């Protein structure tokens, strides 16, 4: 019997260390490092606290939304509605703390509700995405396209198209405040990334997400509650979009239903892809998404700061995305 013991090496296991396989495995990190080096060398006063803050604050929204997107994509789905959900949350918050929705017993109450309610509402819309996908069995890209289109409409209806202006330091702390000199939103971002990454790796829910994305039928046969897993994931994506929406309006001391979160879905997807998550589902890395977002942000900053004309900047940005993704793909074929 002993001779029939099967001890196969995996067909596609990693074959020793060489520079290429290293590159491909850590493509994103390498790209990031190169970018930073480039900036240190060429961008005027890059190595300043101020620069770091500017980039951190500008990348936050993408990362926070990107985390939700990562989870959605890990289940083999996609969420185009994130930008619109940001707009909804962003338009709702001022209505609340400016007391336009209902009279406030005390301003503090308004602030508190302005943090909670919009995020929950965005979450509810996210859950609705999940419902369309699981209950009506509509493909994610279309199901979320629905709120991508309708979301802004809803936000505009709520504010009947007007911009809302405000100056409420307590609320705007989420976008302007600092913790030990670090922008609060950056802290929030890091917390969310760590939490999500940990959840994906260590908890049953995390495994279930990946199983659903890896082979939905198998997952169902294995007794995994596919439906509820999916709904939860879109719900989370909604919640995170809501938070991102609040950050953006707090930063601008203004909410504009037309502009909040515009084009965010593609930035987020790009970040996820550049980060090395498989867009077909089943494999995901939250930290990768963070890195991906940083790359995209840094590219944008570099080109701006070095006065590269916009048109060219767009091309360059695209180039870098394709490079990073290509590095990733090498070891996935």
């Amino acid at each position, binding site marked *: 019997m002993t001779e029939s013991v099967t001890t196969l090496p995996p067909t596609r296991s990693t074959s020793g260390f060489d520079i290429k396989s290293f590159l491909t495995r850590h493509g994103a990190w390498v790209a990031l490092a190169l970018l930073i080096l480039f900036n240190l060398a060429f961008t*005027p*006063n890059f190595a300043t606290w*101020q*620069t770091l803050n*500017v980039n951190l604050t*500008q990348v936050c929204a993408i990362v926070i939304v990107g985390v939700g997107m990562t989870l959605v994509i890990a289940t083999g789905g996609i969420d185009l509605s994130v930008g619109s959900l940001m707009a909804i949350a962003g338009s709702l918050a001022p209505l609340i703390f400016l007391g336009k929705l209902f009279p406030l017993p005390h301003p503090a109450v308004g602030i508190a509700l302005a943090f909670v309610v919009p995020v929950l509402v965005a979450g509810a819309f996210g859950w609705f995405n999940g419902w369309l996908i699981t209950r009506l069995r509509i493909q994610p890209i279309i199901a979320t396209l629905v709120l991508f289109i309708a979301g802004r409409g809803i936000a*505009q209806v709520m504010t009947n*198209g*007007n*911009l809302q*202006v405000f*100056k409420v330091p307590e609320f705007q702390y989420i976008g302007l405040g600092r913790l030990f000199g670090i922008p609060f939103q950056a802290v929030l971002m890091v917390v969310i990334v760590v939490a999500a990454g940990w959840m994906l790796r260590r908890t049953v829910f995390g495994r279930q997400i990946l199983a659903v994305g890896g082979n939905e039928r198998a997952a169902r046969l294995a007794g995994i509650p596919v439906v509820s897993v999916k709904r939860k994931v879109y719900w989370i994506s909604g919640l995170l979009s809501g938070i991102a929406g609040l950050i*953006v309006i707090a*930063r*601008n*001391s*203004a909410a*504009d*239903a*037309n*502009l909040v979160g*515009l*084009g965010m879905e593609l930035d987020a997807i790009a970040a996820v892809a550049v980060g090395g998550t498989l867009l077909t589902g089943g494999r995901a890395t939250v930290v990768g998404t963070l890195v991906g977002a940083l790359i995209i942000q840094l590219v*944008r*900053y570099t080109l*701006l*700061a070095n*006065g590269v*004309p*916009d048109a060219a900047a767009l091309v360059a940005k695209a180039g870098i995305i394709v490079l990073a993704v290509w590095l990733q793909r090498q070891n996935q074929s």
Partner: protein
Amino acid sequence: SAQELPKLKQKDKYKVGFAQTESNNPWRIAQTESMKAEAAKLGHQLVYTDAAGSAAKQVADVNSMIAQGVDLIFLAPREEKPLIPAVMAAKKAGIPVVLLDRNVDQSLAKAGKDYVTFIGSDFVDEGRRAAEALDKATNGTAKIIQLEGTTGSSPANDRRKGFEDYIKNKPGMKIIASQSGDFARDKGRQVAETLLQAHPDATAIYAHNDEMAIGAISALEAAGKKPGKDVQIVSIDGTRDALQAIIDGKMLATVECNPKFGPKAFETLARYAKGEQIQPWVVNTDRFFDKSNAAQLISDAY
């Protein structure tokens, strides 16, 4: 932050930033060119950015200008509110800001305190003058289709206000349909086509800018109507295309929205450097074009 407005020390050459909001229409392009030309004439260095229609990007643009340490920033704010933080950041960094063609919200930032001044046209008045022109031409009777600008943008709001306020006490003038054409020719055309179908009784079109008016003209022609005869068109901006349309008798009139900011802008810069007191709103004077003057003025239209 009640600190003083940053000063500008007198030099003969400045490094000046110009944060343009978009360059997707002739008006913006003319404005940019006027700025560049004037800067070149005076030998200043101009750092130019284009926000491509995104407030967020424009904020980033201004931040990068601050990082590059320019002496003064000319900012054409994309929206009334979201650019406030950029203005404040510049102030904190000790860089004076001059706003062009669109103001920011006065409840959040004040001219003479947070930024030097606002140079620009009076949109409300533009709307009023357009209405006036239409009133004269139709002696007070018109069924009007309004093609609005981008929802929520201040030119759209003000031009609607100016126009609607004027016709309030003109019983003969009614707006029978009003939809947004996003200041764009294609969207303007499509909206016009549709509204003309639904409201064949329309006798006039008021467009918030010339691009949409041109779109409306092709919509009318496609519908087999005679622009300028069956339907009168008034608009705002004063582009070359619009003047040509007036000469061709396809359009009644257009109120200029003067894009040539270069001279006024740098003149203001010089005065501010000298330490003069600048009034909070430097009005950029707008001309009025109709068939009486279109022919001779078209040459220097943009």
